[in-house]
């Protein structure tokens, strides 16, 4: 049936206001403390994969990559992941990588290119995610989504696999009020934007499907060709949360995706202990 902005289920893709205060119910084992989760960590020992348009290796704001790959058609036409040295096809992936690097300077960054420019195919995305899970990455940054419903089931199975195999997928919500995937799935950490300037400020959204909001307006980022710029969009809020996840995991490597998500929740700016 037809879809329009009016008839869509009420979803929150971004927030203009501070989300309501969430009081943690009595009986939680520890008081939520913002500093507890990430403070003092550098991201060292955590392997982060940026599935995007490629990343410019050696960009001042990105540093050295631990690996760069691309999804290409294989001999039988089906896509596969192969090593790649062509850098970034648009600048978008480099931008995301630079945000992660800013938060988690010590993490290991790997790029898998699935976008040519700002667009790509669902088959390539699925191939890349399969590869990322098989290779046991700790955190995956996905500042993109597919609007093709036909790939919904395959993607859901993949993100479930990731969730149970300790690969935490941090996925950006769409900027428009559009149903797209995989950010809509509960097995990923979904990220929308708020417009405040503080890069470390993030909120838990009590009215999902978007679970967290991070700053997504005028985010200082790296761009292709050694450049720097300011960008807006959920694309750039997402790597902030991915970076924070890398910090949490470098401090507490034993945490599962479920636990990291809980740590994010407990350290969100609008989550406070029951008075």
């Amino acid at each position, binding site marked *: 049936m037809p879809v329009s902005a009016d008839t869509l289920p009420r979803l929150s893709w971004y927030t203009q206001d501070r989300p309501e205060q969430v009081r943690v119910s009595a009986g939680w084992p520890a008081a939520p403390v913002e500093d507890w989760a990430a403070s003092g960590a550098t991201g060292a020992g955590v392997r982060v994969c940026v599935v995007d348009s490629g990343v410019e290796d050696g960009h001042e704001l990105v540093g050295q990559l631990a690996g760069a790959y691309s999804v290409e058609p294989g001999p039988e036409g089906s896509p596969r992941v192969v090593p790649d040295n062509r850098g970034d096809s648009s600048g978008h992936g480099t931008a995301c990588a630079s945000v992660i690097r800013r938060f988690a300077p010590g993490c290991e960054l790997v790029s898998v290119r699935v976008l040519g420019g*700002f*667009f790509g195919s669902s088959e390539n995305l699925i191939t890349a995610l399969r590869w990322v899970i098989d290779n046991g990455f700790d955190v995956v940054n996905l500042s993109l989504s597919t609007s*093709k419903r036909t790939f919904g089931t395959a993607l859901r199975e993949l993100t479930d696999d990731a969730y149970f195999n300790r690969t935490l997928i941090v996925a950006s919500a769409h900027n*428009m*009020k559009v149903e797209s995937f995989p950010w809509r799935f509960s097995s990923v950490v979904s990220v929308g934007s708020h417009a405040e300037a503080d890069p470390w400020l993030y909120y838990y959204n009590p009215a999902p499907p978007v679970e967290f909001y991070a700053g997504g307006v005028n985010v200082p980022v790296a761009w292709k060709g050694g450049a720097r710029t300011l960008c*807006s969009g959920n694309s750039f809020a997402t790597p902030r949360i991915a970076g924070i996840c890398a910090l949490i995991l470098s401090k507490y490597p034993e945490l599962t995706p479920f636990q990291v998500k809980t740590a994010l929740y407990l350290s969100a700016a609008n989550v406070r202990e029951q008075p």
Partner: protein
Amino acid sequence: MTCLSCGADIVSVRFCPHCGTPQNGDRGEVRKIVTVLFCDLSGSTEMSRLFDPESLRAILLRYFELMRSCLIRHGGTVEKYIGDAVMAVFGVPTVHEDDALRSVRAAWEMREAIGRLNEELVREIGCGIAIRIGVNTGEVVAVDAATGDHTFVAGETVNMAARLEQHATPGGILLGAETYRMVAGAVTAEAVPPLQVRGRAEPLPAWRVQVVRAHEPPVRRRFDVPLIDRERELRQLSLLLEGVRQDRGCHVCTIFGDPGMGKSRLAHEFVMACQSAGAPAVSSGCSPYGGGTLAPFDGVLSALIEATGTGSLAETFAETPQVATALAGVLRDGAPGLAVDDTFWAVREAFSALVDDRGIVVVLDDLQWASPTALDLITTLTESLHEVAVLFVCLARFELLDARPQWGGGQLGTTSIVLRPLSDEHAHLLAAQLSDVSAHLSDAETERLVTTAEGNPFFLEQLMAMRAEGHAEGVPPSLRALLAARLDLLPAQHLEWLRWAAFFDRFVPSRIAELAPDVRITDADLHHLVSRRFVEPDGRLHGEARYRFGSSQIRDVIYAALPKKLRVERHLRIAGWLRDRRQSDADVGAHLETAAGYSAELRMPDAASLALAAGAHLDRAGRTALSLGDMYRARSFFERALALVPDRLDTMVALVDVLAAVGATESADRLLDELEASSGRPVPAAHGRLQRAVLHLAERGMDHLVAVTEQTLPIFRQENDHVGLARCWLRLGQANQVRYRFDEARQRFEQALTFSHDPTARLELATILGGLAYCLWQGPEPSGAALRRCDELVEQYAGLSKATRVAIESPRALLCAMRGRHDDARRTLRDAARITHEMGHVTAGATIPVFLGKVELLAGDFAAAERALSTSRAAFDDIGDGLMRDTATIDLARAVYLQGRRSEALEWLDSCENLTEGLFPMDAALLASLRARIRSEPGAQLERALTLTAGVPSPQCRGTVLLDAAHVFRSTGRGSDATSALRQARDCFAAKEDLAGLAVTASVQARWDARER
């Protein structure tokens, strides 16, 4: 062909034999998108060896005839036979939106026809023949539909079609990329390795046809994405269905919309909804070519009969064989087999018999192509079907109303729905759903596509698809074909009129009439173009209705169809016409620039001279923009001029100025390197050096600038380069001005002025006049003489530009105020404020209130002064100019103090942190003396102020400081010092003829005298 003047039908002639209007032969050529088909016999050499020439000729004649009939049936034009090969073109003389599909259907049929021929040949001579076919779509130059009596086409498209044919396997059909793109919805094809073609760097992509499906639209529509923003129409359809089912009657709902607006998609969605709700629905459509008179009903009836499950027509109507007989013709080929009335009766009977209690929805697509008989049938059914619930959903373009103006109205049981373009928001939503995987950033490219699509979902789909394939620019071929076919349906004179209009963003009919007197259209014609949305009204110009194109794509398609040679001619004609009417250099230059571009592409001999002419106009346009203070426009004009004529040194010099003014220092430096490299030309090189010194004034200092000026001055003098001389004297004037040597500065500025009559020096002129007027106000020249000189300057220069006017008027207002002409001064500054606001010059806008504040201080209206200076202070704060903010603040503090608010005034003074004594002695002195006066402190501050102003030849500044000193001395009991200071102040004001200052000193003296007494 139709005469453009009287509309009579004529055959290719130079003059219309009916009215005598000359028929322009050149307009016969157009660029158009056509599909070219090549078909050749495979193994014909072998055949000629095997067969006797007589038998061979007989076989070939049958083959040619078969091929020709297939091609003609699908609307192709056989252009020529080359040996055993046939070349046909789809799209000449008239373009159809489905030319590509027609050609592929023809190719498919040719292959099948050869199969049948081979059965005969095998029987007759024991062997068969095989053909290879290549089909390619692209732009060619051809003869216009309106004039064409032959079909010769030329272009790479033709050669590529021939290459595709040569690479096809026997029996195979190879399609080029554009053709495949335009038929992909109706064809199954596999990509073959791209062909290496001689003389072509890029390999040629090709697809081998596997199946051509009948009754499928050529372009795959994205029905997989959710329908957007059509709930109201869907609800309307559901209500209508509910109505016919309740009333057991028949209703016709016609959905009108431009091609691509989503008519089929809406109907598809409605049919799906009906089916999921258990309501039967059938769909059929009309085709722009072929098919019988009752074409859409063959599909409808077959579907109805199929739904009964009985199978054949005869079985279904076993009890009423006359119905079966009457319908047989309709079902065979859409042609009524009997008299029309009998057929109508039979169709009605069929509906009555086959539609059950659930009723039925019948979708009839593309009704604009239905025959009058088919339309009559729909009307008849609506009126005569009773006790059967039928909802006809007719989909039609507005062209249907040309054939049936009353359609959808004036009859019971009819409704019309018009599909409107999507809103921007909904179009964005659609764009988001059309991409597969996309990055989540706000990108300008999608924004552009949404704007380009103008709310048409199909256009947006096509534009997005084209981008996904890596083609960023231009109108997708599918859209171009659609629009070109609509345009080809227009009467020749309408189309020709639009072909002139396409040269303008907005146009008035009278202008086109002047440019192309032989192209005439009436108000009724224009109304028709508006009603078909080719053009739309766009306000009025000089009392005449003005128009623009209904969409930018229509304009693009019309323009793209014009041969480049014709574009060059028309741009030149328009440029000449504009020049004769003294229109702006910007407009003239833009047309010449485009003409120069095309003539270069065509390697026309006059390309270089056109570029020179265009460069000259654009350069002048840049200077005009400069004189109006519009730096960004000026920059663009100069850059375009240089792109055409890279060695225009004067343009380079001007561009450096602009780049420096807008802060693009790096670009300016690069250009200066080029300028200096032109060593053979000393003048431009000297300009380069001088401008570089100006550009880097902040780092290299005034002394360096003065040194460079002194080096270059003799070069300019020797070459008598006035602009250079004006610039040198201007810089020397400024060097003196910043050192408060106002008289010397004044002389240099006057000198500069004598050389600044060249329009190239317009940018400098405002600066020179500003400097000169400033020195006249601030310097020792008595106000009377200074004002007279200012008045001369106003007379001579104020009319030249806003910038020059403002530059002179502001200091002049202060001279007026000194002479007691306060209202004059206020009026002048109000005008200046309005002008700077219009110019959008922020800094100048913030400066005017500083002058106004000074005037009000002179006039004694301190509250007004405070208001003006507060405004100015805030404005400089916004701009981030701390120095000017502090300068305004000193006067603000004085205005506040003179209203008796001491501590507030001191706070203002304390906030001035940017004024350092070394750099700005006058301001620093005024600040120190006012602070001393407020605090009644005769200490070091006051002494410093007196010392600083002692050497400055600015009597009114010195006078103000002395007046402050007199007050301080008086209040600290140093009566004789006070009297002496007051006398000196009076002398200063007298020297300047500052009547306001004199009045103040006189009133102070009077007050003191009164107290003495």
